[in-house]
């Protein structure tokens, strides 16, 4: 199952994921503009596509400023953590048969573990900045991501029960007859919500809440360090979209077209849905976010797990 040329797979996935993340900045701006009856960036290059290049040149040319009051080592390492954890998660995503870096038998747990580690990046960034807005953003991020982590993993256990494996390629293979969106619809909804919260996207973008916290945990960051947070967020969106595709929409499975094309189509649909969510929903209040997570989503996830388990046991 694993790619015969692992280095080529690593390089290819890295390049594609990173350039896709950069491109997403343009995609998001164009789509937001579309849904707000505007045009968005359309001047630089064809359809404004070179806007990404212009932004990259700009962000590289910015002063890379270290605040004198910051905790230097932690401040520098924090943006690296998010990139590392998200990119490591991409190692286990089966894009299509053969295009996967490593086909772990605990891939799903690896993904969950990596996304939990990603919280460190934000908490440490908020802490090391030594500024009250950053700290507040970091605190919120910690609380939010820990709460949503819980039912995110629980919502996936139904899929694991049905597929009988933590191996992502096995989960995809198990969906040959029926995508898991049908038997696990509740699990899908829960995972979608948790995924949005995990990627810190609107309406769960409380850690950065530009209206109230300036920019939350990254308000003290500039230059490419800020850019890494930004790219990390978009990589997170891509990652969550590909995980939804793998877990609930049959990954690369589909007729006529080559498998990788099917995967990319499904993934892009979810990326667009993420952006649509941002275009339409207002940000939650923090107490609403927490009570929603613990009082509604967690019991639902448990219920989903119990019912799925009972059905699977009864079936066998």
């Amino acid at each position: 199952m694993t790619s015969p040329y692992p280095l080529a797979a690593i390089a290819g996935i890295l390049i594609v994921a990173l350039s896709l993340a950069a491109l997403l900045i343009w995609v998001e701006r164009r789509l937001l503009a579309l849904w707000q009856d505007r045009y968005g960036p359309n001047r630089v290059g064809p359809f404004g596509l070179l806007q990404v290049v212009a932004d990259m040149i700009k962000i590289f040319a910015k002063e890379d400023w270290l605040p004198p009051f910051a905790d230097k080592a932690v401040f520098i390492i924090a943006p690296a953590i998010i990139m590392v954890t998200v990119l490591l998660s991409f190692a286990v995503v089966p894009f299509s048969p053969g295009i996967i870096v490593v086909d772990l038998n605990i891939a799903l747990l690896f993904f969950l573990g990596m996304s939990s580690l990603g919280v460190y990046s934000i908490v440490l960034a908020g802490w090391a900045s030594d500024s009250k807005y950053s700290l507040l953003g970091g605190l919120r991020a910690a609380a939010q991501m820990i709460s949503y982590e819980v039912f995110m993993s629980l919502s996936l256990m139904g899929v694991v029960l049905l597929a009988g494996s933590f191996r992502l390629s096995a989960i995809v293979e198990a969906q040959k007859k029926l995508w898991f969106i049908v038997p696990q619809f509740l699990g899908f909804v829960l995972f979608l919500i948790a995924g949005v919260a995990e990627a810190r996207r609107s309406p769960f973008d409380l850690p950065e809440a530009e209206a109230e916290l300036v920019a939350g945990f990254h308000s003290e960051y500039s230059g490419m360090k800020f850019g890494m947070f930004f790219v990390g967020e978009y990589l997170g969106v891509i990652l969550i979209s590909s995980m939804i595709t793998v877990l609930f929409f049959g990954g690369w499975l589909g007729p006529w077209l080559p498998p990788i094309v099917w995967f990319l189509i499904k993934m892009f649909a979810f990326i667009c849905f993420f952006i649509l969510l941002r275009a339409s929903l207002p940000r939650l209040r923090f107490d609403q976010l927490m009570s929603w997570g613990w009082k509604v989503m967690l019991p639902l996830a448990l219920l989903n797990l119990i019912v799925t388990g009972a059905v699977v046991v009864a079936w066998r």
Partner: protein
Amino acid sequence: MWSLIETIWNVFLHSFHKRVTIQYPEQKPYMAPRSRARIILSRDPDGGERCVACYLCAIACPVDCIALQATEDKDERRYPEFFRINFSRCIFCGYCEEACPTYAIQLTPDFEMAEYNRQNLVYEKEDLLIDGPGKYPGYNYWRVSGARIAGKDKGEAENEAPPVDLRSLMP
């Protein structure tokens, strides 16, 4: 919960709406005929300058961007020796147009007057003066006003009664 889904759907429907953006340099916006932008000085139908250099526009101007100097020509008609508008100061409020007693100074819908050099925004009289009567065709101040100029005495203007002899006792 249902309202959230409805919101998302309604926002999605905006994919098929017409975009409101006007692609400016290629596509010009509609400017209303009375919109206030570049200031001009108009002429009366006979081709003479309408401005009588009364200074009312310069006084009305809240940012003091109008400078002029009055003088008289050989027909004893007042006219501005120079007339200067500093458009880097002008706020296009239109008070000068309202103050003008002779319809001479007018605001036009042309707003494209960006310059790289600030000095180029100072418009002199030859830049401001246009050939036509602007928004008020057919109006000639000197023909209707009671002011005396060479070739037109008191009481000889259109619809003007002859001057009253204050020293006479006759009704």
